[in-house]
């Protein structure tokens, strides 16, 4: 059946298609793409005499207690449970714990996956997995938490601002943080 062509109808289609096009462009513009080389840092700020520093470490020794939950490859990657020995890194002004973690893992080529503050109802950054060890991998109450100077802060790691000389530990907890630190 041949229909009488009317520009009015066809225009409508074009408008709708344009709206969809713009939505797609906004979506892509809001997403940042990086190659592997761009993501991993080859250089990190050098420590000088008057620079502020924090001590940073990543540790999942607790996961070894329940290693039967993990697969062979994960067990091999974890090794003795120490992912990053306590090391001093330069603290930039206004750095949060998440900023430091992101920079340190990028520099040391450690895998890390997080949920951004725009992706959950708490508006806070959440670390899902480090070095292929994920939340819930060792039971329902297992996951990554952080300690500053041995204490467990109540803030999200994206909101906690660090100061000079702080000691930050990222640890894998089996009991919602009850089994580690103070």
């Amino acid at each position, binding site marked *: *059946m041949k*229909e*009488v*062509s*009317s520009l*009015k*109808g*066809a225009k*409508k*289609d074009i408008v*709708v298609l344009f709206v969809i096009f713009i939505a797609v462009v906004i979506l892509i513009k809001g*997403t*940042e*793409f*990086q*190659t*592997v080389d*761009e*993501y991993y840092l080859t250089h990190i700020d050098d420590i000088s005499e008057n620079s502020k520093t924090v001590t940073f470490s990543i540790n999942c020794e607790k996961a070894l207690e329940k290693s039967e939950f993990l*697969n*062979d*490859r*994960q067990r091999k*990657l974890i090794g003795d449970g120490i992912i990053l020995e306590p090391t001093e890194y330069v603290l930039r002004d206004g750095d949060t714990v998440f900023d430091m973690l*992101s920079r340190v893992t990028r520099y040391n080529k450690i*895998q890390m*996956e*997080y949920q*951004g503050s725009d992706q959950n109802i708490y508006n806070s950054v959440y670390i899902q*997995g480090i070095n*292929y060890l*994920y939340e819930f991998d060792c039971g329902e109450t297992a996951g990554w938490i952080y300690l500053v100077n041995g204490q467990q802060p109540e803030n999200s790691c994206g909101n906690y601002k660090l100061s000079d000389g702080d000691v930050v530990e990222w640890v894998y907890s089996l009991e919602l943080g009850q089994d580690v630190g103070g």
Partner: protein
Amino acid sequence: MRIHFRFYSFHPFALVVYYMAILFGSMFIVNPVVRLEALLGGVIFLSLIRKRRMVSDIWFYLILFILIWITNPLFSHNGETPLFFMNGNPVTLEAFKCGASIAAAILASIIWFASAAEIIDDEKIVYLAGRFFPRLGLTISMALRFVPRLKKDFSACENAQKTAGLLTSDSFFDRLKFKLGILMSVSAKSVESSVIISRSMRARGYGMKGSTAYSRFFLRVSDVVLAVVSLITFVAEIIAVISGKVGIEFYPSVTELPVNFMAVSTYILYGITAFLPTIIEATEYLKWKYYISKI
């Protein structure tokens, strides 16, 4: 048309066991070999049933496969080989492989369900459920008939409207609105007819104590053979899933394809089961050609 299929004339019980074995394996055994067998067997058998219609459907299935495949790496960032980074989270090769595996499982299930809908028709469903759950049986058979019937009513109504000169706009969205109006009236009609069906069935004494059902199904040797083969595969699948020696893991890196005794026997059993309908139809076709050549 489908009445000419040998597979169509199997006993309903045997067919149900067969489809259970096929669908369980394709969904729960995470193994590329099993999923490929399920997908290939399903596609070949469905294209035997649908012939021409399958050619246009294959585009839909391909797009669906790609969509499911692409979605997984966007949300799952685990894996040891990052390809690029999106908002600071990696998009990895392992996530793509896992996505392909999930897409194959979902697609295989859709395709096997499509062939099940053609092979296990409403008469077989009423036979299976009618004795023990008459209400459920009637509901399922009506639900399965719902979509084809709605399509038929829809095209009839649409053609009537077109002849009246109502559907003239060039705009896709105008036509969509128009068709939605037709859909509303057609679904209202189908609701009405379902009430009529249930009343007329009750008037005939369906599901009452002592009422008998007409059926043409007899358990033959071939039915028992099909049921037994399917059951053996089903049991092998359950053992494979529980033992965990057949499945592979994708994160953090893809494990090697298992080639132990249990895995190989699962591949062979599942392969036989998945290609069984195709093999049956092929032998029947050859037999028919052979007999014709003798006349």
